[in-house]
């Protein structure tokens, strides 16, 4: 492998990272918002969200990516490839994250909430100051798990022509006729990314022991 092959690989890794990163950031936040809306149990909206969540969880990523990219023009939307990729990954991961947040909310200790209310905290203050910080700690292992699923599923965006870390190995071997070296490097890079996540997960789990009273 020559220098230009290395360059292409790193560029592919960068594409994977930033598209996944943006999707994760939006997906974690949007998941929390959806979870809170679902907890409020607003009629109709609740049913719509349930429908979205089950659809998004049941649809294969590749299919979702293709569908969004191909259907956007019929709705009169000009969607860049990377935007279509982010949208698909986000729609997928948000659905899973919403369920993680929702279970963290539902499992939150009633006693602790009552203790907060008893000091005169409104439900809003109780949520921000007492519940959310603990929900983040208890949800992080699940959220990080979902992040690694998203990164491992991200090659799906190659189907609309985005040259990410897996796709780029194809491009390189088309020139060098040596498919093995680039794919090995890609594997190592994926492992490095996932490894960072697992490491972060360990740290959060250690912090979570404080909550187990």
């Amino acid at each position, binding site marked *: 492998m020559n220098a230009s092959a290395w360059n292409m690989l790193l560029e592919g890794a960068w594409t994977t990272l930033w598209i996944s990163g943006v999707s994760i950031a939006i997906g974690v936040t949007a998941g929390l918002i959806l979870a809170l809306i679902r907890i409020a149990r607003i009629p109709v909206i609740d049913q719509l969200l349930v429908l979205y969540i089950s659809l998004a969880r049941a649809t294969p990523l590749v299919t979702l990516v293709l569908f969004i990219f191909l259907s956007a023009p019929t709705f009169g939307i000009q969607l860049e490839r990377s935007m279509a990729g982010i949208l698909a990954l986000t729609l997928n991961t948000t659905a899973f994250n919403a369920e993680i947040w929702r279970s963290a909310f539902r499992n939150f*200790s009633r*006693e*602790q909430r*009552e*203790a*907060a*209310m*008893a*000091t*005169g*905290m*409104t*439900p*809003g*203050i109780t949520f921000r*100051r*007492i519940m959310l*910080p*603990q929900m983040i*700690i208890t949800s992080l292992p699940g959220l990080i798990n979902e992040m690694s699923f998203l990164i491992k599923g991200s090659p799906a965006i190659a189907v609309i022509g985005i040259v990410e870390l897996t796709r780029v190995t194809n491009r390189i071997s088309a020139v060098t006729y040596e498919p093995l070296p680039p794919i090995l490097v890609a594997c190592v890079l994926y492992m490095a990314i996932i490894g960072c996540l697992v490491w972060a997960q360990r740290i959060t789990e250690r912090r979570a*022991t*404080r*909550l*187990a*009273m």
Partner: protein
Amino acid sequence: MPETGLEFSKEPTEVAVSIRNLSKSFNDVEVLRDVNLEVKKGDVVTILGSSGSGKSTLLRCINWLEQPERGSIHIAGERIGVTDEGRAMSVKALARVRAKTGMVFQSFNLWPHLNVLHNVTEAPIHVLGKSRHEAEAHARELLDKVGMSHKADAYPNTLSGGQKQRVAIARALAMQPEVMLFDEPTSALDPELVGEVLAVIKSLSAEGYTMVIVTHEMSFARSVSDQVVFLEKGLIIEQADPETFFTNASTERVRKFLERNK
């Protein structure tokens, strides 16, 4: 002497809690039946009664953690839960009245993500809008009062039950409530830790705090109370000063209860 408006308007400032005609049901079972109780400022009222008699429910109605169907509760002259127009209070208004009460739970219910100091300062900062500096100075005083200042930086999971409960007391005191509500504050403690918590509560009564205490500790109730109330199936069947209550109860039911809980 004829009642004057002046005397009447003075009344709310001298009564910390006034409960009138309170009734509460869970699934059609009446748990509190027409309860009337007045707690004067500075008084300690203990509530006794067998398991399931409605003691916790009564206490939890006072700060509106449970909503009664009938009756009214005033904290320092202000009605809790219901507006002057008879509608349910907004969450903000309710929280403001609730802040006039402090509650100590059987299971402590400290917030595990905050250290001891921040458990105590959280509500003063975010409810009363105190500065962190002011809240921490006050919190350290209170932790000192309950003998926990040496653990200010510790997290709740590193404390013993008795220590947790003393922090919980400081947390409730930090809001400078009109009345402190204790729901069996020592029932979850190992026997050797009960004393330290009761000692703190006694010191508060000596300082003139108004308190309503549900407890199974008879000798403690006898020594700390100004008034003892006995609940039976949601009814107050006996209410007296501690001497009368423990030596000369008028109902057979209470005499039996005291016999069994010696």
